[in-house]
């Protein structure tokens, strides 16, 4: 039994959400004198889709970077699956089962779609450097097994037709999808999506929303995402954290957040003196 057993809850559409998977405790992140995040706490539960929203410069991406190890907060604790996480390098976080995508797509442009997605399997591959170098024994069998997994993900995200295409040649919307595929290839426990729909047209957004829901549904992957499109966020997510100027100003179900006066103010910028 883990230390932090918390009660789950049932969502409006009847999905069962588990206990706390990741907990951020009093996180403060500063760049020199500028505080990007001030004393924020929230949790992410097993199996839920958790959104982080807020106006530009609210510190959303910084928060995602703290979770994925790209930034190390000056204060606060990160708890993952009932254990406090020591300061980690991003690649170590990845091996813990946390995969991510980036706001400004970070793919390997010179490599094919297939190779890009195969890099997502790196954390799962166990054969040694020597075995790889002489291409003997375990290395060969492993490669085949991983190829099968990757093909499944390619089918799932409907990108069969571009398998061999170098990523640099793809249009924006498809690149976003390949990046999602690479993150999924790691079979993550927690999937972090930094503005998965930014810059997409309505149709592409609908596709992406469908994929996110399917991933959560079929693989049971816990998802934390940042998104600007309020409509999308409210449709997709089970619970929402709202940030503004590095502080948390709201946390709850989409309905609760929608009716939160501080949130309305942050988004509309009105001073309310009724």
């Amino acid at each position: 039994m883990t230390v932090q057993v918390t009660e789950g809850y049932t969502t409006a559409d009847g999905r069962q959400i588990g206990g706390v998977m990741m907990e951020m405790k009093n996180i403060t992140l500063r760049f020199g004198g500028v505080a990007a995040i001030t004393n924020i706490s929230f949790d992410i539960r097993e199996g839920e889709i958790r959104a982080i929203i807020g106006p530009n410069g609210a510190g959303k991406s910084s928060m995602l970077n703290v979770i994925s190890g790209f930034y190390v907060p000056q204060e606060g604790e990160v708890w993952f699956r009932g254990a406090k996480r020591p300061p980690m390098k991003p690649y170590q976080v990845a091996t813990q089962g946390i995969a991510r995508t980036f706001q400004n797509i970070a793919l390997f442009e010179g490599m094919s779609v297939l190779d890009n997605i195969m890099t997502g399997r790196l954390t799962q591959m166990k054969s040694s450097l020597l075995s790889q170098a002489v291409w003997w024994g375990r290395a060969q069998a492993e490669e085949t097994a991983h190829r099968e997994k990757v093909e499944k993900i390619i089918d799932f995200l409907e990108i069969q037709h571009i398998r061999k295409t170098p990523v640099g040649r793809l249009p924006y919307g498809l690149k976003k999808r390949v990046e999602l595929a690479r993150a999924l290839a790691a079979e993550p426990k927690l999937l972090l999506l930094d503005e998965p729909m930014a810059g997409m047209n309505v149709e592409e957004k609908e596709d992406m929303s469908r994929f996110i829901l399917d991933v959560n549904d079929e693989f049971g992957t816990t998802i934390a995402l940042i998104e600007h499109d309020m409509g999308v966020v409210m449709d997709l997510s089970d619970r929402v954290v709202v940030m503004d100027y590095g502080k948390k100003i709201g946390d709850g179900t989409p309905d609760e957040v929608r009716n939160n006066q501080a949130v309305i103010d942050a988004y509309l910028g009105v001073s309310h003196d009724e």
Partner: protein
Amino acid sequence: MPDTFFYAAEVMLNGLMAGVMYSLVALGFVLIFKASGIFNYAQGVLALFAALTLVGLQEGQIPFAHIINAIFGTDLHHFGWTLPAVVAIALTALVMVGIAIVIERYILKHLVNQEPIILFMATIGLAYFLEGLGDVMWGSDIKKLDVGLPQGISDTIEEVTYNWFGYGFFIDKLDIVAALVAAALVIALTLFSQYTKYGRALRAVADDHQAALSVGISLRFIWVLVWSIAGFVALVAGIMWGSKSGVQFSLSLIALKALPVLMLGGFTSIPGAIVGGLIIGMGEKLFEFAIGPMIGGATENWFAYVLALLFLVFRPQGLFGEKIIERV
């Protein structure tokens, strides 16, 4: 057919073989440049150091013998054994891995996110450090390297070509071995980088650091891997050059010949390094043969550089390099 034609063909062939030697050094440059954007000035010295270490280990020389003797007044030179070539090569490969680890730990790690020019300067420092270290460890006299590779003119080729064309080709057996080894090396490196997880990780790091981190690749491990491979390629180059012309400190100057090779082939292309080396080697010899006598000879010293200069003017990315397009 006239003998001059065959003579020219022979010159060309010998040029190609000499070009293979340039390619071997250029290959090491390309590997590191591709993966990290560092122009490794020390590649030639790595080859020298590898060759020195190989000879030293093989002949059971005591490292730092001069210093030890000076301090303790002893007269030590050799352990008194000779190692088989295979064992000595394996040990030297291990030493090269050790050097890669030390380079990552004490140089690269501290220069993360620095300008390319700073990393370049660091490799110049490294080059002089390694040259000095090689000198202190193994002494500066010219050494003979013999790992059992065939040497001398191939009689078979001379005989066969004489029977066919009525003209016997003089080809050095060592050059043929070098060509075969270079081909095997390129095939092995290509397979490794295309079809293994570490190869894929290597290409991933070369492409995008941030993305590589996010899929769980440790950059520090990849640096060590890349420098180890470059060290191994340097060892191969060192063996070939050492067997051909003895292990001497001018070996580190061959790195300079690799520069025009890279400008021709492109800094980021492994096939480019090979083809560039072949063109330079062949061009050098043919030019000396055809034009040399008219302008007083000794063209081999500058031909490669002039060719590289022309390439810089008309095709700066080289034959196989990536064209740099700046988006505004």
